[in-house]
């Protein structure tokens, strides 16, 4: 009996030791999301992960991948470097709905129970996602994230910005371990690989490693807390752009020129998105509350125009 217990203990220890971890530190500097990792001060001292393993069989892939990660006061950033000896043979992306046929990196994160977030981004700058309904409802469907990729001679890079608001968690009280994996499809090599070894589906939780966010420094704690309480600027800017381009909002916008001016000014200056996220949220809320009334008024006006003598 004792031997069995020791065996079980050793086995558990081995299994635990086999799980990969990546430590992501807090960064006061936000990376510039342009697919350039070298030369970006935010990434400068961030260590690369170790290499990937081929799915099912294991072993070093022919097209290897590595990544860096950090988090800021409002988002987790991941930068992937995808080596590719045959850059000229990357798959066309005519029908990106079938992203599994394309050259992509896939981020898997389970920040909260039952919330496996799956974000996919391709070498040719196409995005796809699988966001759980639970996450969608939790965030009021404000699940925006962005990424950017860039091709070089023998590799392509992809940078992800994943809002803390989307994750719903941050390392406020101590280090935070999030089940995580980064996976890759290389179509020239017809090769699937991942950072944490997967013997089956990329989605298998058992094969996930851990993204460990180091505890947030005290000086940034308040900002991080705030980021968890309102949608990220990515969602807010997307929302403002959709409102700006939607004719049915024009009466509301016209009635609130000051609000629209503030939002436009922020929208024109991407450098301000992050620092003015609160202003974005407040002003959008003002418009949202007036919108229903404006549309009703517009409908009434059209009905009056058409159906009154």
């Amino acid at each position, binding site marked *: 009996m004792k031997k069995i217990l020791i065996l079980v203990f050793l086995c558990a220890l081995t299994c635990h030791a086999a799980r990969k971890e990546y430590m992501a530190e807090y960064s006061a500097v936000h990376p510039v999301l342009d697919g350039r990792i070298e030369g970006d001060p935010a990434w400068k001292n961030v260590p690369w992960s170790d290499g990937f393993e081929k799915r099912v069989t294991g072993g070093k892939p022919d097209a290897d991948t590595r990544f860096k990660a950090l988090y800021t006061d409002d988002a987790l950033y991941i930068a992937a470097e995808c080596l590719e000896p045959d850059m000229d043979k990357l798959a066309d992306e005519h029908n990106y709905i079938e992203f599994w046929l394309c050259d992509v990196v896939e981020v898997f994160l389970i920040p909260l129970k039952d919330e496996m977030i799956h974000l996919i981004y391709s070498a040719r700058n196409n995005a796809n996602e699988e966001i759980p*309904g*639970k996450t969608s409802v*939790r965030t009021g*469907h404000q699940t925006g994230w962005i990424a950017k990729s860039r091709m070089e001679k023998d590799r392509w890079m992809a940078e992800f910005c994943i809002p803390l608001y989307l994750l719903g968690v941050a390392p406020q009280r101590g280090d935070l371990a999030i089940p995580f994996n980064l996976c890759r499809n290389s179509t020239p090599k017809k090769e699937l690989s991942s950072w944490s070894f997967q013997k089956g589906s990329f989605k298998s939780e058992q094969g996930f490693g851990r993204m460990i966010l180091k505890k947030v420094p005290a000086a940034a704690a308040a900002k991080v807390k705030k980021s968890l309480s309102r949608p990220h600027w990515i969602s807010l800017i997307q929302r403002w752009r959709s409102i700006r381009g939607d004719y049915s909002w024009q009466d509301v916008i016209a009635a609130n020129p000051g609000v629209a001016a503030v939002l436009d000014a922020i929208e024109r200056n991407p450098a301000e998105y992050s620092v003015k996220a609160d202003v974005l949220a407040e002003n959008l809320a003002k418009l949202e509350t007036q919108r229903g009334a404006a549309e009703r008024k517009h409908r009434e006006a059209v009905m009056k125009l*058409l159906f009154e003598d």
Partner: protein
Amino acid sequence: MRRMHWKHLAALAASWWLFCAEAQQIVFETVFRTNESGGVMNEADPGSPGKLEKEAKIVDAVFGKALSLPGDIYSRAVFPATDKMELSNELTIGMWVKCDSLPDESAPKNKRACGFFSRGWNWRAELAKNRRVSAQFTVRDADGRDRYFATFSELRDMEPGIWNHIAVTYSVSGGKLSIYLNGEQKASRDSDVYRKVKLLPLNLRRDPLVLGSLPFYSPFAGMIGRTRMYAQALTPEQINAQERDIALRILKQYAADAPELKAEIEALLAQKNLPLSAVAGIQKKALRLRENRQLSGGSSAPLYYGVVNPMGPETFLPDSLPPKDSINWPLRIVAAKNEFEPASFLVCPQRDIPGFLPVLSEFRTKDGKTLPASIADIRIVKVIVQAGADTANRHIRALKPVLLLHDDALVKVDYEKMENYLRLSFPDGEKYQWISKYGDSFRFEEYLSAKENPVHDAKTIRPISLKKHFNRQYWLTVRPPADAAPGLYHATLQLNSEGGTLAAIPVRLRVLPFELPVPKTNYDLNRRFFTGIYYRHNWHNLFDKNAPGSLTSRGRNERQFRAELRNLRDHGVSYPTIVMAFNLPRWDWNKWGSAEEGGKVNTVTDQDRAYFRRCLQILREEGMETRPLFLHTGGNFGFRHLYKSAEHRGLLKKMIEETHALIGHKDIEFYGVDEAHGPYLTAQFEVWRDMREMGAEVFTTSVRTNVQQIAGKISTVIASGVPDRLYSGDMHARGGRIWNYANPQAGQKEKPFPYRVNFGFGVYTANYDGIATYAYNVSAAHPWNDFDNRVEPDLAFVIGTADGVVDTPSWEGYREGIDDIRYATKLREEIGKAGKSGSAEKKRIAAAADGWLDKINVHTPGFDPEWTRLQVIEWILKLTEGAEK
């Protein structure tokens, strides 16, 4: 004392459970009894109680205890998996469910459903916004591939606000995954959704059993009652027997609460084998009575009515009630000159009313201009019994509003037996023919003599007898004449019965000061938008003046052919594919698809040529466009993918020249191989190249993902599925056109909404050049029998009669989609004119309108094509200000 009571109850419950468990092997059961430590009992395994999470709580229900879920994604009851629950080959999961509200409409499309049962991610049941219940199982096969078995009930099957019993059965040996709602099978499936892989044993997992919301969906709000899992796939009889105790308790409660239904309930209570569906029916009736009292305001009037949107996503059945804010409202219609425009109202009789007939008055403006009542056509929306839409559910019978009839008696429906009877009007009297026989047919164009099947609808609306609380929908189609004076007209639609006028609906008709132009594309006002459709017609009786004609497309006579063409024209179609069954020059392979077997030139007789010329003449006479002519020629003149330029080039040239000579011009598009893909697609490229070199253009269908390959090789591709500017961009860049089909195919006769949106603003804003979905008039075997096609509903917008066709709401939706494009074209024209005008104000409005039009997005949640069209009209009126309104 409390302790004694608890033990007594526990003993009783255990006895009851043992009794049930012996009859059917129950491996899990909860009646939401809690143990002393607050755990929720699993009666089948008392040692494995479940727990409530977050706001889930246990409340009193009609039949005992139930789980209450407030609509929070985290609230649920979780039961640990037990050994008994590890069922891989056969099981039933059954539960009582009462949902308070349907899923969140503001959510992204894929989130507009809520789960209420799951075991892990791979076993789950959901309720969708459109009230469909689904059951889904993902099973890994021996090769490690996930197989997805899912089945969906029909629309509107699940009624919110009442207790429904939902059961899902899974049986590998029986080969079926089925959904039962209140003891009746509503859907089933026997294979993988994507491939024909039969049901596989479930992968055994230790996932807990969860009652409540699912992670990828909207949260569930409502109650869940007794839930059981059985080790067998129960039959409907067994489900009814197992759940009858709860059904009886619900019924007894309603006997006390709904005195109007007392007699009906007592009769049901006297039945030995009370069906669960009857209990659901009583609850629904009680709910409707309550809502009906609220809507009628307690009035003693014999009826009330509600104005409903004929083109909306909601369909109306006899127990449907109109929206609260539509009661006794006026009918408001806005139409351009010469445009057909629908309106609709729902009549809700509060007692039996014989001889009911809506009668429309003359239309009159305040300054005395008039239009006759005859500009409007009134029809009844006939609800008949139809088969399930999915191939797996063709045996399911459901009520659907599919026919627009003048004479309600053309089809009689037995709502008890769920069967239809079609009236045949012989010279010596009428006879009803049973048209609900199941068949295994997939025969196209079976000849059904119109003489032996004299099916005739009346030419104008006929009176009917209304039955108390059996609501009827009417459909009004108004067409102001081309010379109508614009303005606001008033009329009255009297709802008459044998005893006089019961109510009067005010009608307001705004006639716009313009006619709609022929449709043009969104991206170029100089390019025609082609309004096509696949049209089957076999005209071998065309020269026979005495030909009886047929109810199907095989053997229609000239009168029927002309009636169909007029109907097509009146629905905005100018380019039907011509014509899918005729004899023209082509190469016939001796054996289908085998080059080795050789082939021969098809013999075209002088009579064939004469038929074809006559057909073209009639097409032109009835207003169809024949330049360009979209011609079916059996797949690249029959050469299909087997063409070899070196061998066949000369023959191909001869056939093209002969066809050009026959038609009299060269503006013709010849059909390629239908829906070709892979090597069958690429093998055509050679023949397409040669055909185009010889001055013959090609059009054919393709999945949209092949458009990039096809672009530049043919003139017109008819691409399936959701339109996208990606694909139109590919075709336009290489000088081609792109149309849309299968978005969806015809056949969902009761649904105008998707046809209007997808073949209207949907294709227009994606910069497509045309539409031609399949099809106008296809039927397998009998076109009036929906049960004799084992694969799918007949892919038809209309149903043939002896003297024409009967329309369906879906067909009216197709027309409204085309009209939306014509309105958008009109706006583009006015924008262009204003841009060239000297008025700065007009230019400003034009720029704003242009920007607005560019931003129409049919994929926005809650997109409303009617409101979008009204805004188009508003812009047109602003730009044409000064013209009379």
